[in-house]
């Protein structure tokens, strides 16, 4: 029999016992729906986690420090390469060189300093750091109140929520519910904050050193002056999350545009150490953050930077173990989802075996007028397949709807907790196709026994059956 005839006959046979076959199909749908819902949740959570991790900037960033920086002197990995005293300086040319490495998006210096900020004539002391424009995509700014810096050199500032609370004189007690970010940001946005800072101005030994030959540089006496400044800054944003979560105690609570921070030549913690060493006019950096295109490019970039003679630090293994965790989670969710489908497949077997009993005579007639065993077998097979595909398609829709509803519910909850909405449910196309195909395979397997039994019926016996 032709496939088109086969499917046509299968559909019309299914329509004959509409209620029973619909119930069986609904059974498959529920199985597929639970499978789809479970896997969609697993995939959605995985995507959410990797999106968050990606946005956190932890996994595509290599932090570069100079080997001259003795803070990390005892670490094992730094034993190779040049000795600290002979290693290159982490200065502007080095930064530019890193930026030209393959797969590197940008390399920016880390400017941070502790200083005093005045708000309404009250002084507050905190860590300030410069933020590159690319940080705009950091997830810390997803739920930010206000706006990101208008330009890389704008005299603007973004506050971390805890510092904003401090400015407003609010102190948080343990166990207190977080005040909504909007309430804290409202009185501050657009206000002025005055930053006091110390600019580092180099003295080149009474001006004579400028004319001295470069060979003398080693022995030249160097010094710099510290000049105090005041800079009014406009508060443009208040952020809830911490864009610098990996910096531990060095975390800043006030952020300036990076270019502005660089141009201020603020005296930095490392500068005191530098005075023991000859220095040039080119800026030197304590650390440079190198952003790579994809997390998997990190090892190669790290390698290249180490060859340049710098220390590197990155977190890359976490994504691998996270993927492993989600692979296991998906597997278990899939198994639970499949259980429902297994129950549904028993439903198919039952329906088809019942259909054989009911249609025994019909099978006899078909055989008497020339249907072969394989015609009969394929007909029952096709019926199982049609139920499988219909159940699968309906199940995907059902599962998707369940996912949507739960997602909406979750987002209502998140909103109440003043978190940004999230997409925790993902139904990629391969899952849709895969679920329908899986339902079809399960149905066909369930149809094997009934179909073989129908095909094996003796036509004379079957015709005698009333």
């Amino acid at each position, binding site marked *: 029999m032709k496939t088109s005839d086969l499917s046509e006959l299968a559909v019309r046979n299914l329509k004959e016992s509409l209620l029973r076959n619909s119930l069986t199909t609904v059974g498959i749908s529920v199985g597929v729906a639970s499978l789809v819902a479970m896997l969609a949740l697993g995939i959605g959570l995985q995507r959410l986690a990797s999106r968050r991790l990606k946005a956190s900037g932890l996994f595509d960033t290599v932090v570069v420090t100079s080997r001259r920086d003795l803070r990390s002197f005892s670490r094992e990995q730094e034993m190779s390469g040049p000795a600290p005293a002979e290693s290159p300086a982490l200065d502007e040319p080095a930064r530019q060189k890193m930026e030209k490495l393959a797969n590197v998006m940008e390399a920016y210096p880390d400017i941070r300093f502790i200083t005093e900020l005045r708000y309404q004539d009250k002084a507050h002391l905190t860590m300030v750091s410069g933020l590159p424009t690319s940080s705009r995509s950091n997830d810390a700014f997803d739920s930010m109140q206000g706006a990101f810096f208008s330009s890389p050199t704008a005299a603007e500032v973004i506050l971390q929520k805890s510092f904003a609370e401090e400015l407003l004189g609010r102190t948080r007690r343990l166990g207190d519910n977080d005040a909504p970010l909007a309430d804290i940001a409202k009185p501050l946005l657009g206000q002025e904050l005055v930053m006091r800072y110390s600019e580092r101005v180099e003295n080149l030994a009474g001006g004579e050193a400028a004319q001295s030959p470069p060979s003398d540089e080693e022995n030249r006496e160097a010094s710099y002056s510290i000049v105090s400044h005041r800079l009014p800054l406009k508060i443009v944003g208040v952020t809830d999350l911490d864009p610098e979560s990996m910096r531990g105690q060095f975390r800043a609570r006030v952020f300036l545009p990076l270019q502005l921070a660089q141009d201020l030549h603020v005296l930095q913690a490392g500068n005191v150490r530098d005075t023991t060493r000859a220095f040039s006019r080119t800026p030197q950096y304590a650390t440079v953050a190198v952003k790579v295109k994809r997390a998997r490019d990190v090892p190669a970039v790290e390698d290249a930077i180490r060859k340049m003679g710098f220390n590197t630090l990155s977190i890359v293994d976490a994504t691998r173990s996270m993927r492993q965790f989600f692979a296991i989670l998906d597997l278990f969710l899939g198994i639970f989802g499949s259980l429902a489908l297994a129950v549904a497949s028993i439903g198919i077997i039952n329906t088809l075996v019942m259909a054989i009993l009911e249609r025994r005579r019909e099978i006899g007639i078909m*055989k008497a007028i*020339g249907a072969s065993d394989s015609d009969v077998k394929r007909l029952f097979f096709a019926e199982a397949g049609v139920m499988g595909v219909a159940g699968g398609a309906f199940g995907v829709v059902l599962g998707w709807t369940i996912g949507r509803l739960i997602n909406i519910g979750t987002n209502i909850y998140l909103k109440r907790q003043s978190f940004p909405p999230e997409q925790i449910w993902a139904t990629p196309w391969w899952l849709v196709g895969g679920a329908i195909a899986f339902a079809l395979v399960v149905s066909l397997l369930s149809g094997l026994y009934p179909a073989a039994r129908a095909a094996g019926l003796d036509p004379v016996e079957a015709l005698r059956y009333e």
Partner: protein
Amino acid sequence: MGETLIRAVDGISLEIAKGEFVALLGPSGSGKSSLLNLMAGLDRPTSGSILVEGRNISELSRNELAQYRLKAVGMVFQSFNLIASMNVIENVELPMRFAEIDRGDRDRLAREALQRVGLSGRLRHRPAELSGGEQQRTALARALINRPQLLLADEPTGNLDSQTGMEIMDLIGEFNDSLGMTVVMVTHERSLAERYAGRMVFLADGKLVGDQANVRAVPVQKRRR
């Protein structure tokens, strides 16, 4: 099974020529239907052979037997054996689906066959909506559809009143006559056999007890009233 071996058909030797109209007669349980099922390829003999146009159908595989039933044999039954969920034209088309004939040809051939049995007006009716005679006409159209050379009829008039039965028998006689089909009909109505069959074979307890040419069969021309 396995308790008592019933010899439904026992040691029968019978030769039927092409184009003959043979009636198998005998009381209930005499083995007429079993013999017909053997000829139809629905059943297999435990021993012996059934030769159809030189081919021993008792040695065919299940698949070859299905092909034989599909192409070489047309069957009609006492209880019509139409598929209840299909309408008239679908029932007639069904063997052509198994024969993988194209949809367009199927429709045309089914209409022709239904016209031949005088049932053009009720193509979309289901069997339950038809009279017994109309159902048997549908079954006849279905039996003709693949143009078989052998028509096997198992008490084709058993469920019909005598008038309708005669109409069906006229049709069968006409197929025998005009299409040259070989007809083997099981019946227990001797009068019918005498009127239509050219040869009468008598069975009892699975054995052949009589085989005679029927000279009194009414010629086709005279049957047409």
